[in-house]
């Protein structure tokens, strides 16, 4: 592992007209690190994630990514073709709603295989073998490979979406509320799976969530956002056990104790 970060973000801001999406966000992300972005609805988490994943262009600021050849490239100066290539090879994006990240009308196997075919894989047998392997890694039975995701439960769809994203061996995965809308037992299994995959593959990830428990389980570091600004950041355990900013204290004390 090198001593250089994977992603450098500096003074990133996004305005929607006069409204603030996110403002002046600066951080570095290191290889293999999971960063959680927490905050209430409307705090700019998703705007930040969309800017970082180049789905949105920021109003100002820079983000540079260390490519596989070790060179830093400025994300917002890349051509669209390069950005889209990065999106489907070196990056992953896990949507909150699996229907946004999956092709609902093609089989699970084709969903997993699409990225492989997009980078030029033209051997059906190999594509299918890889799909079978990935389905088993996300705990989907092999005999569901030809079923459409429409026939899957919410948890299975989310796991399929994760497999589809990880099949090309990305180095950075963006996740937008990956456990949103799932019941708690399914959430727990998904988190367990994600944690295992992230450690096994040495993935770096940026996870947006409003669920502090998800942040605690998955991430090493977290940023707390409010009104588009980062109010506190640090090691996850430190932030959650010893919150310093008043807003973080409020957030931590608002967790329901069962």
């Amino acid at each position, binding site marked *: 592992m090198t001593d250089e970060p994977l992603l450098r973000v500096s003074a990133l801001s996004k305005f929607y007209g006069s409204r603030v999406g996110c403002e002046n966000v600066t951080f570095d992300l290191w290889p293999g690190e999971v960063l959680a972005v927490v905050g209430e609805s409307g705090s700019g988490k998703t705007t930040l994630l969309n800017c970082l994943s180049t789905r949105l262009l920021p109003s100002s600021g820079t983000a540079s990514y260390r490519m596989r050849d070790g060179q830093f490239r400025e994300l917002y100066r890349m051509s*669209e073709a390069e950005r*889209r290539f990065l999106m489907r090879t070196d990056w992953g994006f896990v949507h909150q709603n699996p229907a946004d990240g999956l*092709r609902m009308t093609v*089989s699970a196997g*084709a969903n997993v*295989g699409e990225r492989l*075919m*997009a980078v030029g894989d*033209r*051997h059906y047998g190999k594509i299918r073998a890889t799909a079978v392997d990935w389905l088993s890694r996300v705990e989907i039975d092999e005999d569901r490979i030809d079923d459409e995701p429409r026939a899957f439960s919410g948890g299975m769809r989310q796991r399929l979406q994760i497999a589809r994203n990880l099949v090309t061996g990305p180095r950075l995965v963006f996740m937008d509320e990956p456990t949103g809308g799932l019941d708690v037992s399914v959430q727990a299994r998904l988190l367990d799976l994600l944690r295992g995959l992230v450690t096994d593959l040495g993935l770096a990830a940026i996870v947006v969530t409003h669920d502090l428990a998800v942040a605690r389980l998955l991430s090493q570091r977290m940023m707390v956002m409010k009104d588009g600004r980062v109010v506190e950041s640090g090691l996850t355990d430190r932030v959650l056990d010893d919150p310093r900013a008043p807003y973080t204290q409020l957030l931590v004390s608002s967790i329901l104790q069962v």
Partner: protein
Amino acid sequence: MTAQATDIATYNFAYLDEQTKRMIRRAILKGIAIPGYQVPFASREMPMPYGWGTGGVQVTASIIGPDDVLKVIDQGADDTTNAVSIRAFFKKVANVAVTTETAKATIIQTRHRIPEYPLTTGQVLVYQVPIPEPLRFLEPRETETRKMHALEEYGLMHVKLYEDIARHGRIATTYAYPVKVEGRYVMDPSPTPKFDNPKMHRSPALQLFGAGREKRIYALPPFTDVVSLDFEDHPFEVQTFDQPCALCAAENVYLDEVILDDHGGHMFVCSDTDHCEKRRAEGHRGHLAPETMEPAQ
């Protein structure tokens, strides 16, 4: 002029006005310059409904001259409604010579077949195209599919072929089989049977595609590389038929199934009627051919 004297509406040569023809020719030239690329054009209302070949008719009308000889086929046949009416249309509005013989035609407008008789330099094949976008049913957003063409993102096309193999054990797409043109654009060859795909590859004839409702024109200049998409372990292959044509005994041609009665009787005959008639005139007989040739209609 006599037309005014008889008080009948007059048409410009080949129905379309000259400005429209120029506009369409420009689109055709652009299409030829970028093989396989769908060029938008301002499709006109034609005196026939969409889906009956308005795109092909506009392309033909823009390139036809008084010396041209026109052949029109519909699913390979010269004598079906669509073919007969389009042929009559151009006979009336352009007063051109028409033929059913592939070799004699300079322009062949076709709906979903390529003639069996090999095309030669100087001939133009005009296809009627219902849906020019090969990615349409995989990605419904036209903004997105155009971007995919621009960035050469064609992984999705193979997703469709993957689905075929996963469901049917082989690539089950038999018509509108996607092709890659000159190693760049993925193109819908219009709903021709995939049997005809190899004929497109390096054809000496100019091939023009017109989609009237969808307002797109694309083209294959002569001798263009046209490769059908496939997988390494499931290579592209064309349909084969167990038996020869029942009328002319031709093999390695595309056959239509014709129902003979309501007791399950059927026969397979050439879909290319001109080819079939030629062979019968040369004395070839299939097992269901009548003893004597019926007089040509």
